[in-house]
């Protein structure tokens, strides 16, 4: 039982946090979200220079082979700093998927480019609001000579408009009714349509439509990827939890500071017991969320898929509930200022809203957890 970080881990966290504060601070972010690109290529390259894009590239592929705790710490800093760069989408989820499923040739083609910041990839799996169960998709791939022909839709794929490579999951009915395959689809492929938009938390995303998109046989990643795909999604979910925890932590700190400085009736509003007790409850939610973020990271690479999935559902549900309570109260305690776009708290609130709905909402994960309840 040990809740401390190694010196290297602490340094990784400090470096990431400092980088975001100095290079991707709130004012810089305000410009980026108004830009056509929706992210900063310069910042992305600097993340590569810091090694943060190689965190999930295995050492044998020239990467850092960072562990779950390292990813958690970076994710926490990203959430606290409201980062809009596609670190979670590309450097965590897509990179993890390629590292765990791709052939040697595919790895050699993509991993160095991903680590260097020359390529952004995203994992396009979810198709509806039904959650992220790896088996819940309808997109289908049919073998056609030397090609695969893919048709279907993907919903709210974060950072897809930024990506050069989109990893699309699909059913392959010719192989079996249950099998799921993964295909690397280049941006701009014929038959691929992106309905792109900005999300409520100022990130770029797209709904994808695939109409007979043709990719060569070599574009298929792995075989029946149900297990490793679920593992990659689970790993991403754990880091999304870390991101949310980082945002929660920051938002409570901001609320406490605001309540100390905001004077009404001649005293700081933080001296009112009604507000003190509200903030005490926010802290309790935050500490419970912190525990679950730690647990999520600790279980993120567990090979037992059922235990991993159940535990992550517990984490997502509880942190989601904390996000709702702490986020709402943070806005409430900031009063009218909490409603304004100029205050970071309103952006953290939006990021927490996105967290609640992404990758299965609290109710879906609570239901998933319920299904494994046993009487003994």
């Amino acid at each position, binding site marked *: *039982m*040990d*809740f*401390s*970080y190694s010196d290297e*881990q602490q340094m990784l966290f400090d470096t990431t946090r400092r980088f975001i504060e100095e290079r991707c601070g709130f004012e810089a972010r305000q410009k980026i979200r108004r830009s056509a690109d929706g992210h900063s290529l310069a910042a992305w390259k600097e993340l590569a220079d810091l090694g943060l894009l190689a965190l999930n590239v295995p050492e044998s592929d020239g990467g850092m082979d960072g562990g779950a*705790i390292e990813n958690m710490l970076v994710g926490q800093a990203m959430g606290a700093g409201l980062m809009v760069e596609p670190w979670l989408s590309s450097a965590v989820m897509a990179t993890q998927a390629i590292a765990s499923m791709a052939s040697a040739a595919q790895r050699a083609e993509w991993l160095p480019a991903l680590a260097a910041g020359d390529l952004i990839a995203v994992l396009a799996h979810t198709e509806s609001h039904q959650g992220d169960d790896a088996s819940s998709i309808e997109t289908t791939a049919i073998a056609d000579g030397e090609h695969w022909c893919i048709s279907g839709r993907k919903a709210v794929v974060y950072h897809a408009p930024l990506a050069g490579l989109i990893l699309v999951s699909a059913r392959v009915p010719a192989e079996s009714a249950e099998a799921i395959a993964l295909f690397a689809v280049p941006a701009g492929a014929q038959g691929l349509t992106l309905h792109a938009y900005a999300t409520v938390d100022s990130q770029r995303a797209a709904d994808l439509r695939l109409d007979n998109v043709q990719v060569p046989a070599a574009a298929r990643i792995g075989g029946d990827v149900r297990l490793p795909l679920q593992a990659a999604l689970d790993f991403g979910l754990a880091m999304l939890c870390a991101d949310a925890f980082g945002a929660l932590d920051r938002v409570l700190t901001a609320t*406490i500071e605001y*309540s*100390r400085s905001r004077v009404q009736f001649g005293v700081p509003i*933080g*001296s009112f*017991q009604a507000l*003190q*007790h509200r*903030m*005490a*409850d926010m*802290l*309790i939610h935050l*500490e*419970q*969320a*912190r*525990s*679950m973020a*730690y*647990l999520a*990271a*600790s279980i993120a690479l567990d090979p037992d898929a059922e235990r991993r999935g159940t535990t992550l559902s*517990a984490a997502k*549900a*509880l942190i989601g509930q904390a996000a709702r309570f702490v986020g709402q109260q943070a806005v409430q305690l900031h009063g009218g200022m909490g409603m304004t776009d100029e205050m970071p708290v309103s952006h953290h609130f939006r990021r927490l809203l996105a967290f609640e709905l992404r990758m299965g909402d609290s109710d879906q994960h*609570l*239901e998933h*957890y*319920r299904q494994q*309840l*046993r*009487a*003994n």
Partner: protein
Amino acid sequence: MDLNYSAADEQFRDEVSGFIASALPAEIRQRAAAGNHSQIRADILRWQNILYQKGWAAPAWPVEFGGTGWSKVQQFIFETECALADAPPQLAFSIKMIGPVLIRYGTPAQQQQFLPGILSGQDWWCQGYSEPGSGSDLASLKMQAVREGNEYVLNGQKIWNTLGQFADWIFCLVRTDSSGKPQRGISFILIDMKSPGITVRPTRLLDGSDEVNEIWFDDVRVPAANLIGEENNGWTYAKFLLGHERTNIAGIGSSKRALRRLKQAAGDLHKAGRPLIEDRQFGLKLAQLEIELLALEITNMRVIVADAEKRTPGPEASILKIRGTEIAQRISELRLEAYGISALACAAESALAGLSDADAVVGAQSRAGADYLNLRKLSIFGGSNEIQRNIIAQMILGL
């Protein structure tokens, strides 16, 4: 970072659970499991003596005073395993409260007089803190102690005294000076419950239990040698004691046991022809509770590990107290919902009505109702949850 117990700790857990399985008398376990308090003094003291024989009488005490030398994590494992095995809890007033105060602030003579009886389970201690006018505002207490030669003469009243009807000794906060700040004139004194002038009257509670008492002190004479530390410095010792009271305040073990029992009941009980545990609405509430308890266990471990270097737990214990009691109360609510209308049959009320063998009239569902009522106390005692929120706001948030 590693959230798993070490191999040594897992081995320790096996050793503890193995010992409890072999050493805990079946009738004590059955009474504890059933919530039957009819033999509570005998059961708790007998179990204490069994632990004493094993050398486990006071896990948290320094080894030279009869402690175990266990780490805080091991102490947590021990308490959790005891709760899960339906062992009666050790008497907190003895082991967790007055013991550490005697060790920290007592004279060698006081230590020699009192510690052996605490360790062996010979003596039963109780606490005299609250008074009719002094609850959350404890420092306003009025019970008087006046020095006369080598004695103090005590007059006043204590309330909410838990299980004092069984006590050999009581430790009390008393007023020895009214001139300055309220905290400055309080003293900490040990009183033999057989002293002339003490009257104990049980307070019947809403669940029919009489686990708390009012105690009157009418010219009770106590040797001055029974004063702890310095006169008028009792508030310091009281705060030290409250810190110790809160080390296991989350009640993880007992909530785990209660949740396990609730799930078993939900497997046996039926709703619309199916086991209740398969009912979606009930299952979601159960899932929610289990998740919150899981998170609290980790939060508790974080506090324990962070506190390991300190002598007393910090204000983070308030987080554990609030969430731990909320979860325990919530489990009792779900248990009530599980039994539904049949939880209304009440053994205590039936006994009051003169029905013979009231316990036999109603079954396990009776305890569901009684427990729900009884556990309202959790968010009130030991510093109400509102006081805990004040502590969090002031000590952690700096407001």
